[in-house]
């Protein structure tokens, strides 16, 4: 064995036995440092004749490379061991609870109103609004409900002692229908709107609260008839409940502001003791509707021989209950955190047609 081979064995075994980074470093200095054994050998290359160098060069350089590689490999091993040792001391109990973030919710009524806006946007309906403190002309007279009309009494109206500049009595709107009037008097047909909002009636029991939410729909155009109304309501209810087996039953009825007037029942089935929309095991009343009365169109300054259309109205709270299963209307307005957490919606449950309007 040559001297160089012996040296290489010695150094590699020293590397092997070095068990700390410091020990390894001193092996490195002994071999590759300025005074190191390998460095010394490398220096001898300069004094050699070219022939000698041709023989010794690869040998000495091979030695240096073997040592360098050996040190690098050992260094990596030692560092991994040290890191593992440190990590072992840094263990956390990952079953401990993470910091809590409060969970916020959107009220079911707001959610359903957004759902309705989304569905009707696809059918070309914009969302219109009107005041809740109304005058009796917009709430009644313009809707063909004169003062002596029995329907006024049926509305259980909340009145204010105040009158407006034109001497009209001020009241809380009993339905969203005055928005029909406000829309027709401010906007040129064709019109397609929905108008969701708060309405008020002096009525309070398990299924009635003095404040609740309605949504009104209005289409004014040329050549609109009951068939369009039926299609619109079917399309809307199927989209809202996301079921194709939603069946409607139309019944003649009476509202002063529509003629003909149509009450709409939707079929339900009973699943596990609960009424579920779809099928036709039974019927429940969900909507009032009809063709807008020509007197209403006239009252808004439009020509009823040119323009005709339909209107409908339904309870938003009721729609929410039918879809999501709440059974107590009063809880909607109680602000009980537990109820809101249970029935409320995630902020990111934004109804979209592509993602589905229900959540």
């Amino acid at each position: 064995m040559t001297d160089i081979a012996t040296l290489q064995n010695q150094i590699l075994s020293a590397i092997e036995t070095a068990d700390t980074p410091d020990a390894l470093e001193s092996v490195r200095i002994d071999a590759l440092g300025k005074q190191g054994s390998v460095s010394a050998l490398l220096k001898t290359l300069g004094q050699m004749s070219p022939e000698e160098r041709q023989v010794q060069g690869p040998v000495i350089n091979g030695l240096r490379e073997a040592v360098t590689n050996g040190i690098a490999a050992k260094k990596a091993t030692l560092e991994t061991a040290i890191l593992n040792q440190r990590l072992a001391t840094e263990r956390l109990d990952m079953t401990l609870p993470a910091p809590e973030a409060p969970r916020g919710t959107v009220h079911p009524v707001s959610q359903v109103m957004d759902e309705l806006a989304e569905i009707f946007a696809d059918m070309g309906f914009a969302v219109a609004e009107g005041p809740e403190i109304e005058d009796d002309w917009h709430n009644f007279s313009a809707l063909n409900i004169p003062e002596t009309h029995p329907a006024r009494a049926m509305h259980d109206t909340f009145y204010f002692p105040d009158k407006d500049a034109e001497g009209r009595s001020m009241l809380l709107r009993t339905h969203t229908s005055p928005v029909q009037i406000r829309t027709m008097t401010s906007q040129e047909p064709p019109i397609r709107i929905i108008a969701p909002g708060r309405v008020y009636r002096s009525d309070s029991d398990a299924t009635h609260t003095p404040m609740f939410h309605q949504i009104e729909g209005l289409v004014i155009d040329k050549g609109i008839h009951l068939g369009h109304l039926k299609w619109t309501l079917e399309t809307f209810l199927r989209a809202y409940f996301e079921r194709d087996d939603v069946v409607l039953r139309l019944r003649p009825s009476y509202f002063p502001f529509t003629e003909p007037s149509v009450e709409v029942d939707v079929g339900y089935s009973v699943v596990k003791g609960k009424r579920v929309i779809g099928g036709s095991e039974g019927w429940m009343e969900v909507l009032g509707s009809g063709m807008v009365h020509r007197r209403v169109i006239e009252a808004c300054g439009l020509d009823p021989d040119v323009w005709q259309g339909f209107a409908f109205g339904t309870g938003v709270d009721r729609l929410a209950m039918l879809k999501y299963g709440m059974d107590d209307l009063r809880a909607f307005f109680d602000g009980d955190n537990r109820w809101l957490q249970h029935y409320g919606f995630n902020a990111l449950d934004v109804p979209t047609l592509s993602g589905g309007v229900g959540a």
Partner: protein
Amino acid sequence: MKFSLSWLKYYLETDATIEQVADCLNRIGLEVEGIENPADKLVGFRVARVLTAAPHPQADKLQVLTVDSGDGNPLQVVCGAPNARAGLVGVFGVEGATVPANGMVLKKTAIRGVESNGMMCSVAELELGDDHDGIIELPADAPVGMAFAEYADASDPVIDVAITPNRQDCMGVMGIARDLAAASLGTFKPVEVPTIEGSYSCPTEIRTDDPEGCPAFYGRVIRGVKNGPSPDWMQARLKAAGQRPISALVDCTNYLMLACGRPAHAYDLAKLNGAVVARRAKDGETVTALNGKDYILTSEMTVIADDSGVHDIAGIMGGEHSGCSDDTSDVLLEIAYFTPERIARTGQALALTSDARSRFERGVDPAFIDDGLALLTDLIVQTCGGEPSDVIRAGQLPLDRKTVAYDTARCAALGGIDVPADRQKAILESLGFEVASDWKVTVPTWRRDIDGLADLVEEVVRIVGLDNVVSTPLPRADGVAKPTATPKQSLERKVRRAAAARGLNEAINWSFLPQKEADAFGGGIWSLENPISEDMKVMRPSLLPGLLSAVQRNMDRGASSVRLFEIGRCYLADRERLTAGIVLAGEKAPRAWATGKAARFDAYDTKAEVLALLAAAGVATDGLMVMGEAGDHYHPGQSATLRMGPKNVLAAFGTLHPATAKAFDLDGTIIAAEIFLDAIPAKKGAGFMRPAFTPPALQAVTRDFAFLVPEQLPAGDLVRTIKGCDKENIVAVRLFDRFAGQGVPEGQVSLAIEVTLQPGDKSYTDEDLKAISDRVVAAAAKQGATLRG
């Protein structure tokens, strides 16, 4: 409106079952609210004979009977009725039957030690009358063992129909029959009107002095009547309709009303004095009505009066004084036509409802007055005897009949159903319309609701059936649906979802408040005249009272942390202001292993919410001014407003004033905020293009400064001044420490500020940085700040 099937069949020849009748009623717009069969209540009750009756060994008032209910197996029954005796045929309730009057289920039992099986029943127990005196006694030949319902012919279902306000004609059974016949459910049999010959001229003068309120007043006298109970058949029909039989004279008028929709009134002639006149009431005149209440009248109301005073609030309710009693022998019948609007106004003003009012205000058939009087006279003479006088006809009936120029094409154009012209004609005629060859349609006198073409379309469509309306898609605009939300609506949606995303729960509170809660927030402008309760009286001037009450309820239920918000309107004098309200109460974060004790909310939490929600609404919050005057309901030292310019307040927030919190029974620190969404200016500029931007190539550098400032200096002023002192270089200024105490002179605080500088095309030199620092220090000095050494 309730009526029995048998009564309906009196006017309608049909084999239809009750289900078919109900379906048809629903189909033509007479909504069935319920069907009840009295026979259902009588299941388990049979005709039975008492075989033996012996005294009860333990009780004087009881007897022990053996009862044969027809199955050849007589049962022992203990009975307390005084009329129970051997041989009596009565009604026996078997074990398992439910007693209609009290819901008790009969079972084998022991009464004072003697076994009893079932019960012999009284009229009251079976809800057939009020008689409690003893058990029912049937004729001796009643077939023992027969179901009592069958024996009593009780299987006559009662239908309850909701009549819409336009259909006065269906407020009588006859009108409903006419409608059903038009819908092909059977053949209409109008009532046969008898001819009554008066045998003497009416001795009482009748006239109308108020032709506007009472255009026509007909009447006659019947002498020598004998009042008493009305006949069973009439009582049965009245009871089915939910009307309590009173006496034959009263029942006859009620019967006419329910059968034909025609109210009338019978006065006791002996109690009248002089001419009977329809006139305006005098202001302040009073009358005691049949309901026993006194009413003060005005000259806007029509009454029926004689020389002694008012006897009847015309068309609404008779007077107590002149009503018929058991002793009445001579009656004056009044059958009049009252103007619907007058009746409606009077009824509203007196807050008095009655069956008569609900018919008159909808408009009774003006042509059915002679017939009505003849029918009523006949009913009374049949049941009470007596001698009718001639009829007096005062005034003029409004008999003008409306005509409508019909166009059969409108049926499809409006109603969406194509119906052949001859079918349309047949339908209209079956409902009593007269159709001329030129399609001029004359409206029957009983259909006051019809006044236009659309009404006729409705008649045709409802009889043909709305099921036949074919769904027709609305025309659809090209392309995908366009966005429809207004900027205001988009803003509201964004704020709502941002709040929910930040952990707040959306509540919906009442729009009305108790007076004192509104007062705690400066008072409400709008106060209801007729609130449902004092707790729901004043329209809210702020969203906070409702939220605070909700927080209080949650706290009462044991909640430890409440984060509520609401987006809704506040009701101001000139507008309804869309506002977002927030209330935070209790723990911000619960105690936790990593953080220790629970953290409470403070005023800065609501500042964070307000800034976040304004940012979600598209407001550049950096430019907002923090100012005072948040409102008296806030802690004066821990509240502020955020304004866009000195006038436009976008939000108010802070700690709630302890006095306000106390007014809502809330303990501890309550944090609140209001964001006035209508104050947020609309976004300027259209289009989606953003301003051009390329991230700078050179890295930003930061420099820290610590300043001593007077304690009262708002930190925001210092930050703003520094930010503005070198806009070319300074891109951000962040206050990261505030310290007072050791090393800081009394009356001063130390504020540490990190300034971020963004170099342009070349890196900063030491000289550049020194120059910027000098500018920062100089600017701070203007606010009274000195650089800490």
